């Protein structure tokens, strides 16, 4: 499967947080602005200083798709599988792409797509996927 790089100093704190079981978001110091995806400069204050702050891990499903072939070989065995966009409850402007799964280590096709509803609450869990700990989502 595909994975994000761990070699980018900007985003490495996010992945280190996942490895510790913490969902972090990037917050710029000058403005308090929380952005996603991460970036070097704050578009509000036009400054660089930022921290990674813990989010609650509570979210709701903003939208979802169910992917069918043709797909990359590593994903085809799971098809059809759902992919969700979730909006974080404590940072509603942050929407993350992920998988909704029956449990942290379950397959990406472990939730019946027909039961997924836009707006339903989910919470973050973490699992290792191809050598990197990633956030995933289970029903709250």
């Amino acid at each position: 499967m595909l994975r994000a790089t761990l070699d980018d100093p900007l985003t490495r704190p996010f992945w280190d947080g996942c490895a510790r079981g913490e969902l972090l978001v990037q917050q710029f110091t000058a403005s308090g602005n929380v952005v996603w995806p991460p970036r070097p400069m704050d578009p509000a204050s036009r400054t660089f200083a930022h921290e990674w702050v813990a989010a609650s891990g509570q979210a709701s499903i903003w939208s979802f798709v169910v992917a069918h072939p043709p797909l990359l070989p590593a994903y085809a065995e799971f098809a059809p599988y759902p992919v969700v966009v979730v909006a974080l409850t404590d940072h509603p402007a942050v929407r993350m792409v992920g998988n909704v799964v029956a449990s942290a280590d379950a397959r990406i096709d472990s939730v019946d797509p027909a039961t997924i509803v836009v707006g339903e609450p989910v919470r973050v869990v973490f699992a290792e996927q191809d050598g990197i700990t990633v956030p995933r989502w289970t029903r709250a």
Partner: protein
Amino acid sequence: MAVVGVGQTELGKGLPDTEFVLALRAIRAALDDCGIDPSEVDGLASYTMEPDREVEVGRNLGLGDITWFSQVGYGGGGGCATVLHAAAAIATGQCNVAVAWRSRKRADKASRVWAQSPEVLADYLQWSRPPGLLRPVDEIAMLMRRHMHEYGTTREQLAEVALAFRAHAQRNPGAAMHGRPLTLDAYLDARWISEPLCLFDNCLESDGAAAVVLVSAERARDLPQPPVLIHAGAQGLPRQHNLMAAYFSDDPLRDGPSSAAAPLLWSRADVGPADVKVAQLYDAFSPLVLFSLEGYGFCSRGESGGFVEGGALGPGGRLPTNTAGGSMSEAYLHGFNLITEGVRQVRGTASGQVADADVCLVTSGECVPTSALLLRSDS
């Protein structure tokens, strides 16, 4: 500025010519169409996805000294921008005869960009691809599901887009889907690609090329074809834009690229959406047509599903759209065949000609930095 020549190759799958040779054929046809000798061409506009091709185009077509050349990025968002940039170059004296084109060999499965992803992602795709949101269609499907949730848009309404373009293609013998009409039942029974989108919500994978020739409006009036004026044009890269990952933007259903292009486009025009008799709207995926109808002001936000009902985009509808079949039923050339069809409509020579089509809107890809043109007759 005016478009005075259009050229298009055969369109289809598995054409024997290379992408470059297809480009040469289309450009040659466009120059023949307007009777301008290739040695007079001094400006070239193309897509960044055809890198370093100006040199070879010049030495094969026997062009003269090129004094202006430019490329526009972002794939299907750049089509109208190539024409707009060429018009601006002529207006500012950088060149006199400009050619814009797009050539594609896409029908080969190996040419699918998404299928060639590296395993470790360091760019923006690292935030969407690993969970399995692998393809452009998945990203558009994510927005379409949200559109359905917020506005109540239905699959039957979305089907109107595919059915309308397929109906237009039945009048265009050169269209890939000529002779293959589509019914609502067939649409609803089609295999899924990325729910809520099915096979027929996707464009074709095609080979082919199309080209246009631009000169000043004054010179255009001395040439054999009726001039098609560039009445207005605009590009759009909205604030906090995220390419195809539009679900990351501030207000994804309302801040798409057309929201940045449309205000300038209409402010530069002395017509409005109600004056547009025929439209060519970028249709790599059917939801993009709904988003463009809203973004360019043909209806309010959220009302595109109702707007397209009853065959509104089809032959004889209130806004005939993609009248040669578009990317979904003629060929997918990154939207450039929408430009050539727009020119034919304003000339009055289209296979599915719309009566009194004196104003045509042509748009490029929504969900990437985009561009749009208003074409208008000279009379």
